[in-house]
């Protein structure tokens, strides 16, 4: 589904990614692990179009998407849930779920640019209901929600437009135990629906519960790409810290 071919990225003289290659199939969950500064977040931002790769290609269903704008990449079905969620805290839940994709009203075939608030609100409510998220209302300002509720909003935003690939950056880092299980169950659910999931996590117990493969990054290169069933937590830790 998603293929990353020899991606390189340097910020000035600093090489953050030095040729990263791996792929994710539909219905598969890949965990990307690595120490701070290994290049995980940079790689994800290249996939979503926020950063431009210095070299290499990202392919979505055999079509190159490298260099495409973030909005177009979302249109193509690649969604990311950022570690800091990237919500607009002074806007309500509906506005955040439809951020960048507000449904607008048409007049004789023309896009008027006027937001269809009713349709957005109804769809947002439906999405929140399907996710089973506990929110008092979709009209509440996101800044007034708890951390777990805010994450539900970010997840709803990623899933509303039937994505093909979902990237999650440390989705469980800031959550309570019960909420962590909720997110892990969600990842399994996405897999069963044929969605490719890339999970970035420091929590190896989570990784071993949901990931099919584990890709370890160190200093901008893939130093291990192993099936979860064929490796152990000790091995993965060793890859991350570079003991091999």
């Amino acid at each position, binding site marked *: 589904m998603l293929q990353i071919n020899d991606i390189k990225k340097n910020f000035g003289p600093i090489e953050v990614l030095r040729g990263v290659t791996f792929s994710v199939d539909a219905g598969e969950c890949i965990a990307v692990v690595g120490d701070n500064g290994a290049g995980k977040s940079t790689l994800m931002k290249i996939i979503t179009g926020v950063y431009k790769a210095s070299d290499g290609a990202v392919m979505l269903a055999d079509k190159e998407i490298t260099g495409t*704008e973030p909005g177009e990449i979302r249109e193509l079905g690649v969604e990311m849930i950022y570690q800091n969620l990237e919500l607009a805290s002074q806007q309500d839940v509906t506005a955040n779920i439809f*951020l960048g994709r507000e449904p607008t009203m048409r007049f004789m075939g023309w896009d008027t640019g006027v937001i269809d608030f009713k349709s957005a609100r109804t769809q947002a409510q439906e999405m929140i209901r399907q996710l*089973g998220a506990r929110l008092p209302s979709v009209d509440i300002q996101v800044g007034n929600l708890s951390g777990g509720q805010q994450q539900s909003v970010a997840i709803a935003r990623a899933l509303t437009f039937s994505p093909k690939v979902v990237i999650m950056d440390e989705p469980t880092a800031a959550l309570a135990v019960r909420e962590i299980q909720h997110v892990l*169950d969600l990842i399994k*659910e996405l897999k069963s629906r044929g969605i490719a999931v890339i999970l970035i996590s420091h929590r190896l117990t989570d990784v071993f519960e949901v990931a099919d493969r584990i890709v370890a990054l160190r200093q901008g290169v893939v130093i291990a790409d192993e099936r979860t069933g064929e490796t152990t937590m000790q091995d993965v830790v060793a890859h991350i810290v570079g003991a091999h």
Partner: protein
Amino acid sequence: MPNTEAASSGASPASAAVPRNKGALRVESLIVLAILVAVMAFASPYFFTVPNILNVVLATSTIGILALGATFVIGSAGIDLSVGSILAFAGVIGALVASTLGLPWWLAIPAAVLAGAFAGWINGLVITYGNVPAFVVTLGMMGVARGVALLITDGQAIYGLPAPLIWLGQGRPFGIPVPALVFIVVAIILHFVLSYTRFGRHTLIIGDNERGARAMGVPVRSLRIKIYILSGMMAGLAGLLTTARVNAGDPTAGMTFELSAITAAIIGGTNLFGGRATILGTVIGALIMGVLQNGLNLLAIPSFWQQISIGVVLVAAVWLDQFAKRGRE
């Protein structure tokens, strides 16, 4: 679709306890305006008469139109210090077209508005593609636009405008001053744009979280450029109306008006750090300043006190906002 948590209620109808986002207008500013009007009406029997109220709206219109642009700029976490100078620049261009160049009078309207839009476009380009902070870019434009206005007029005001153009500043159809009408019409249009369109929504979202907006596909750069163009257009329109009202293209017009415009937007509840703004709030903010000025005039209080009072009102408005925020948290 995933339903991973057993038995949860999902989204329920809006509960009364939670603040709703819609109508982010601060009631405080409306209360302040009401108190101010009551005090002035009590202090001066002339205040609450139709001619005087129209005077207030006329006096508010120039700052008000600038403040409408400032609402978008500050709502997007930007700042535009150049609107006072752009007002003079565009006003001079309008006078030049209609008077010196002897072109049809109505060409002064697009000329002034486009002159303002052009200056705003330059602001936007340098801010977004040059990565120069808006404060610096618009401070620079403040000097440049003023300088160009002085340069092309050789420091002298341009007189001798055609009558229809003067009507735009001095005419009173149905007793209502034209600038006041323009202010009201533009305010209604921009209220609709800010509250109901993607452009308005995205303006507030890039003010709230620019990086997140970009990651979600909002075209941040082109949006920012459009916002500064809008601010420039408002300054151009205000410049044209000023030229028409005083019957002269004055290169020294609009000095420090940017501060009044920003003040009006902030008093009206625009978040100084972006993400929250309403046009209705800004209109109320501009009226507060207009009423204050008018009232102090009626009470024959020296104009120096007006400056002091507006400064105090600005700081008090922001302080009250911070105070209320702390109360909520």
